[in-house]
């Protein structure tokens, strides 16, 4: 059981969603974050005040999956998130100790496996 964290460009978020659905990864959460990953900073000017914007908007996907789904999930995040330019984001796969589905009390593998109802 792993937690796959993918940080991608906000404008690629829809492609990532599509790729995840195609890979039959059904459960995930996403949040807006700000980050910096070596891309060119944007210089903006507000009425004479010029600033270098060090942080860019990113979207962070968190997907808890059983071991068999790790590669599929990582593949979907890569496929949907890639533009080829610096700043496409990163994927982290970390071990997951325990998971519980609140509604049923199912734990671990049962909690991260999609159910039909």
């Amino acid at each position, binding site marked *: 059981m792993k937690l796959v964290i993918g940080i991608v460009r906000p404008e690629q978020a829809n492609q990532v969603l599509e790729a995840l659905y195609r890979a039959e990864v059904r459960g995930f959460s996403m949040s807006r974050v700000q980050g910096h990953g*070596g891309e060119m900073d*944007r210089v903006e000017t507000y009425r004479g005040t010029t600033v*270098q*914007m*060090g*942080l860019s908007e990113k979207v962070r996907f968190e997907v808890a999956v059983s071991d068999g789904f790790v590669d599929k999930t990582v593949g979907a995040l890569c496929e949907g998130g890639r533009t080829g330019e610096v700043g496409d984001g990163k994927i982290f796969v970390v071990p997951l100790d325990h998971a519980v589905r609140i509604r049923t009390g199912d734990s671990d593998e049962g909690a991260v496996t999609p159910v039909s109802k």
Partner: protein
Amino acid sequence: MSSGIDTGDTAWMLVATALVLLMTPALGLFYAGLVRSKNVLNTFMMSIAAIAVATITWAAVGYSLAFDGHGALIGGLGNAFMSGVDFAPREGTTIPELVFFAFQATFCIITTALISGAVVERMRFAPFLVFSALWSVLVYAVLAHWAFGGGWLISGGTLDFAGGVPVEMASGFSALAAALFVGARKDYGRQALLPHNAVFVLLGAGLLWFGWFGFNGGSGFSTGEPSVLAFTNTLLCPAATLVVWFALDLMRGRKVTAIGAATAIVVGCVLITPAGGYVSPGWAMLLGALGAIPSYGIIVWRTRTRVDETLDVLAAHGTAGFIGILFIGFFAQEAWNGVSDGLLYGNAAQLGDQALAALAAPTYAFVATFVLLKALGAVMPLRASDREEAMGMDVVQHGEEAYVTGEGAILLLPDDGEKVAVPVADPG
């Protein structure tokens, strides 16, 4: 004061001019609410750009081509660079020509700004500036001459009180041409591209309606009966459109929508624009009610096509302007307007004159805009790249964001203000 000037008329027209100018930032707000948050400033700036560019072109040649002389197709250059535009009354009015000039300038501005609705979220800003300058002269001034300035439509008997021809049909059908030529946004039809702030849309529509009292109420150039009639019709007609729009929304989706209501306000104001001073208050309400239906239908239909006429200028302005112009042909009433009757009151010829305008204006606007963009597109790229479109036009075109947080922003001091940003990870 020069002789022939009426102080009351002039006072009203000064106020009406300011009211109409307010409509352009109001339109900017309306449009800005309808786009995604990464394109808010660019969208609003297109309206501001129209104020900048169209005012200058209007002063240079636009006004003269529209209002100098009685040529069939185009005016003269006698008033170019505002030559002879002074305190003397404008022919046929009791207001100084300077006020008449400014009032008409605000019409040119808002019409130019309206077209931006077809190309937001992907057209580059610089070509839009050039387009605005050329369009305001080659399309707006020509059609204003036809309908207002002594050209073949007005001298042939077409009635257009406040701009069904040069403002509403011109912008609507030019918008269609622009949308077809510039092309759809890259994600159009694949992703849901949603309005980012419905409150902006409602507030923008409200301010447009407020300004429209100057637009229609000022188009009699006096405080006389046509102006008063148009003023009150500007209240009645959009209210009827709103009620019918609510009903259509209820029938279609069982809910009355806010953005639908904002759209209805604009459609209602457009419907009464050509007809304001020519139809009775009762017929104005009927116009508002009936006219809602085709615009509603076109909005529903258009979003199912590949035509990304993004903010529905064709449905709201082109279609409603078309309906308003034709409506005069049926329901104009000499007892109210002192000028002419429509078909319902026994004058079928009026309907013919209106139908002529309803064919000529859309045709000219569509063709001229298409040719203009083709020429412009040969000289400079009109569109941002897909990558830029994804980032958003605010950062790419203006170097600003509408909803900036400031977190992680580093102040660049004036002495290193010229420093070009380098990739932080780049060791060099």
